[in-house]
C-alpha cells in the first residue's frame, strides 16, 4: 500500500469531502421538505392527495436512484429541464430521499396513540391545534432516529452523483486513479472519509435523540 501517495493526495480528497458534505446537507434539507409534504399528502383526508403521496413514494422508492439521476440530468434537456450536474444531483437525490422520509415521518405520526388526539380534541382544540400541540411534538421525537437512518443512506447515496460528473469524493477518487493507477489506495481513502462523515453524523443524531427524548 502506497501510504506516501495517500498522504500526498489527501488534501484534494478533503476538499472533495466538503463537496460531499454540502451535497448531503442540501439533499437532506430538500428531502425533509419533500418528506414533510409527502407525509402531509399521505395523511390527508382527501383521497386525491393520499393517492398522489402514495404514487410519489412508490415511484421514487421503486426505481434506482441512479436511473432517476440519469433521467433528470441526461434526459432533462430533452424536455426543457437544463440543470448543471450539481443542481441535478441535489434535486434528484433530494426528491429520492424525500420518498423515504415521507414514510418515516408518516410512520412516526401514526404511531402516536389516538387517545392523545382525543384528549386534545376533548379540551376543545381544533384538529390542527391538536396536531401541532400534541401529536407532532411527540412524533418529532420519535422521528429523530429513523430520520438518522435516512440521513445515513442519503450521505452514501451522494456517491452516485459521480456518475453525472459532480466532483465529489467518489468522482475525485476515480480521477486520481486515472493518473496514479492505484485504485486500492484511492478508494480506501474515499471510504475512510465517508466513514468519518457518517460517524460524526451518527453521533449527532444520537445526541439529538437523547436530548429530545421524553423522560
Amino acid at each position, binding site marked *: 500500500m502506497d501510504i506516501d501517495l495517500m498522504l500526498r493526495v489527501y488534501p484534494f480528497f478533503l476538499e472533495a469531502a466538503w463537496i460531499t458534505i454540502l451535497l448531503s446537507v442540501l439533499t437532506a434539507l430538500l428531502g425533509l421538505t419533500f418528506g414533510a409534504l409527502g407525509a402531509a399528502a399521505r395523511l390527508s383526508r382527501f383521497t386525491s392527495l393520499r393517492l398522489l403521496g402514495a404514487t410519489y413514494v412508490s415511484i421514487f422508492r421503486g426505481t434506482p436512484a441512479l436511473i432517476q439521476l440519469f433521467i433528470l440530468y441526461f434526459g432533462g434537456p430533452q424536455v426543457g429541464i437544463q440543470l448543471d450536474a450539481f443542481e441535478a444531483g441535489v434535486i434528484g437525490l433530494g426528491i429520492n430521499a424525500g420518498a423515504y422520509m415521507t414514510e418515516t415521518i408518516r410512520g412516526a405520526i401514526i404511531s402516536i396513540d389516538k387517545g*392523545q388526539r*382525543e384528549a*386534545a*380534541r376533548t*379540551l376543545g*382544540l381544533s384538529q390542527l*391545534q391538536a396536531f401541532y400541540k400534541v401529536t407532532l*411534538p411527540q412524533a418529532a421525537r420519535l422521528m429523530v432516529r429513523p430520520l438518522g437512518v435516512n440521513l445515513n443512506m442519503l450521505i452514501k447515496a451522494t456517491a452516485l452523483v459521480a456518475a453525472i460528473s459532480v466532483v465529489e469524493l467518489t468522482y475525485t477518487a476515480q480521477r486520481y486513479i486515472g493518473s496514479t493507477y492505484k485504485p486500492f489506495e484511492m478508494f480506501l481513502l474515499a471510504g475512510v472519509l465517508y466513514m468519518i462523515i457518517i460517524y460524526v453524523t451518527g453521533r449527532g443524531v444520537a445526541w439529538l435523540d437523547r436530548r429530545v427524548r*421524553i*423522560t
Partner: protein
Amino acid sequence: MTESTDFVQIRHAQKSFGTLEVLKDISLNVARGQIVAIIGPSGSGKSTLLRAINDLDALTGGEVWLDGVQVNKQLPHRQYEKHINEMRQQIGMVFQHFNLFPHMTARENVTMAPKMLKGLSAEEADALAKEQLDKVGMLERIDYYPSQLSGGQKQRVAIARALAMNPKLMLFDEATSALDPELVSEVNQVMKKLAEEHMTMIIVTHEMDFAASVCDRVLFMDQGVVVEEGPPEQVFGNPQKARTRAFLRKELDNPE
C-alpha cells in the same frame, strides 16, 4: 331557557357499525348537578354512549343537548368543527388510560388548552395550574412529567386538566379501571369532592360501591339498551329486571 332537568338530554340515541347496532334508541335526561352512573357488561355500549355526548363517537341517529344547545348539530364541515370545539370546551372528559400529554409537565397539561383557547396570560395560567392541581392534591408534583407519576397521580392530573377549562359537565370513562387497586381510592376521593361541589357528572364505571355511594341515579345498560334505571338503592338493592340481577350477582362474585 331550559328546565333544569333537561340540562343534558340524549334523545333517541342510535349508533350502528354496518349491521351491528351498538346503541338502540337510548334517551336520557340529566339535571344540573346530578351524578349519573352507567354500569353494564363490556360491549353493552356504555362507553359509546358516553363518547357520543361530546361527539368523540358520532351517533348515527338521535340528538345530544347540553344546556339548551344541540351538541351534534347538522352543520357544514367547517361550521361544525367550530361549533363542536366550543361545545367540547364545556364538557370535560377523563379517560381510562389518562391520555396525559407525555411531553408536558403536569402544569403544562393543565394550562395548555386554557392558554390556547381562552388566551390566559402567563400569570393567570400559573394561578390556574396551582389552583386546579391543588384541588386534586397534586400541587407538589406541578413540574413533574407524566412518566414520573403513578397511575392514580396521572389520573388526578387528568381530572385537573379537564377542570381547568371550567366545564359544565364532566364525563368519566372508566376512570379507575386501569389503576392498581390501591390507587383507586385517591381518584375516587377527587371525584367525590367534585360531587360535593355539585358538578354534573356522567360516570361509566365498574365500581358498584362507588356508584352506590356517590351517584344520584344508576343506569344499567346491556346490548345497546338501558335495561333498568333508578336511584342506586333501587338498582342495587332491589333490581327489577332479571338481567340486572344476573349482572350484579356476577360483579359481586368476582369484582375485578
